Each structure stands twice: as structure tokens, then as C-alpha cells.
């Protein structure tokens, strides 16, 4: 069973490799056999704008990955919630009930 822990990465790998295969395999076509990549790209979007957006999204996704792993790890360490805390959605009632003891004001 311990080996299956590492299986958590397998869907991610399958997803990524599938994406690479689809994106690289279709070159030099955007629509296979109909439209070439060289005919499809925007003339007015400069290389600088593409680099800017790529760097921006890389940074955002890196930040979100760190936040996601941090929060997920906390949840895993915490373990399952007991009967009273099965609903963890931030309702107003829930906030009022727990705000005094949980939130430092």
C-alpha cells in the first residue's frame, strides 16, 4: 500500500505528457491539415507581450502551488473533522460561533 502513495503523481504526469504530446505532435499545424501555426498567430501581439504573460502566469501558478501545498498539508496533518465540523464552509453562523475563539482580532 505504501507504494501507492507515490501514485498521487501519476495522474499529474499523465495529464502533462498528454498535453505535451497533443501540443507538440500537431506541429506545424494549429488545425491538423487545415491551418498552419505560421498562418494562425497574431501579428499585433509582440514577443515581449508573450514573454510578459508567460512569466506572469508562471509566477502566479508557482505562488498558488505553494499556497495549495501549504493548506493541503495542514488539512492532512489535521486529519478528518469530527461530527460537529463536517461542514467547513464559511457561513455567517459558523463565523459567529467560532470567531471569538479562533480568530485573533
Amino acid at each position, binding site marked *: 500500500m505504501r507504494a501507492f502513495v507515490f501514485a498521487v503523481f501519476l495522474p499529474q504526469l499523465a495529464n502533462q505528457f498528454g498535453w505535451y504530446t497533443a501540443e507538440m505532435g500537431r506541429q506545424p499545424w494549429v488545425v491538423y491539415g487545415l491551418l498552419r501555426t505560421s498562418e494562425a498567430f*497574431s501579428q499585433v501581439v509582440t514577443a515581449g*507581450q508573450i514573454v510578459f504573460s508567460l512569466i506572469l502566469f508562471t509566477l*502566479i501558478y508557482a505562488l498558488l502551488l505553494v499556497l495549495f501545498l501549504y*493548506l493541503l498539508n495542514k488539512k492532512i496533518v489535521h486529519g478528518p473533522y469530527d461530527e460537529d465540523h463536517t461542514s467547513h464552509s*464559511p457561513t*455567517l453562523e459558523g463565523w459567529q460561533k467560532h470567531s471569538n475563539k479562533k*480568530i485573533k*482580532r
Partner: protein
Amino acid sequence: METFLGIDYPTLWFLVIGGLFSGYGILDGFDLGAGAWHLFLRKEESRRIALNAVGPVWDGNEVWLVIGGGALFAGFPIVYASVLSAMYIPFILFLVFLIFRAVSIEFRSKEPMLWWRKMWDISYSVSSIMLAVLLGVVLGNVLQGMPIGKNTELEGAGWRF
């Protein structure tokens, strides 16, 4: 020309897309407004109430924009291509703020620390304001008219707004 219910296709698509973007403007205007107002609400309880008011509907409202964009792509692909290429930077920033707005709503209650909540409050409110500003930039440019050349691409520099 092909017609449906006596209306030709371009007019029909124009009506559909107009209806979708109007619906988006009205519905998401409500929750972007609630987000823009967020930092001006001083009490945590007021902020919680404002968040809960948009909580069940904000993501549904955004779908109107997604469908509007999809309809534009299907109905007037050249308009879609020209506008999204010409307004590349505003649309990229629009996506960035959409991400931060959604993440802020989800993450702000995940940690009890005050700085954590403050951080996401600012992110949420600033994103909401910037989304409205960027939509204004795009729609303003479209309404004013953009110099689109024969190759259906924007003429001149990419930074015309």
C-alpha cells in the same frame, strides 16, 4: 441568406451576444461591486455578510462572460480574434485578477491569522475594482472603434488604449 425565425444569422448572433454580455454586466456588476466595496466595510461581520451575498452566485455570474466569449468566437470569430489580439495585455491582466479574486474568496477564511485575512481582503477588493476597470478599457476601445486593417489585425502599435 440563412434565417432563423425570420432573423438572419448575423443579427441573431448579435442579439444573442448582446443579451449574454448585458446579462454578464448586470449580474457580475453586482458581485464586482460588492467586491469593490469590500475594503470600505470596516467591520469583519459586514465583510462576511457582503461575501456571503455574492458567495453562491459570483462564479455562476462569471459563466455569462465565458458563454459570451464562446458565442463571440462561434458567431463572429474575426471580431473575437481581432479584439483579443489587439487587447492582449488588458485580457491577460483580466485573467490574472480573475484568478486572484476567486482565490481570495476561497482562501481568506482558511487561516485564522489577521494578516492572512487582511491580505486576501485587499487582493479581493483590488481585483474586483481592476476587473471593472479592465472591462472598461476593452469595451471603451471597442465602442470608440479600433483601426482594424485588411488582415483583420489592429493597425499601429499594440498599446493604443
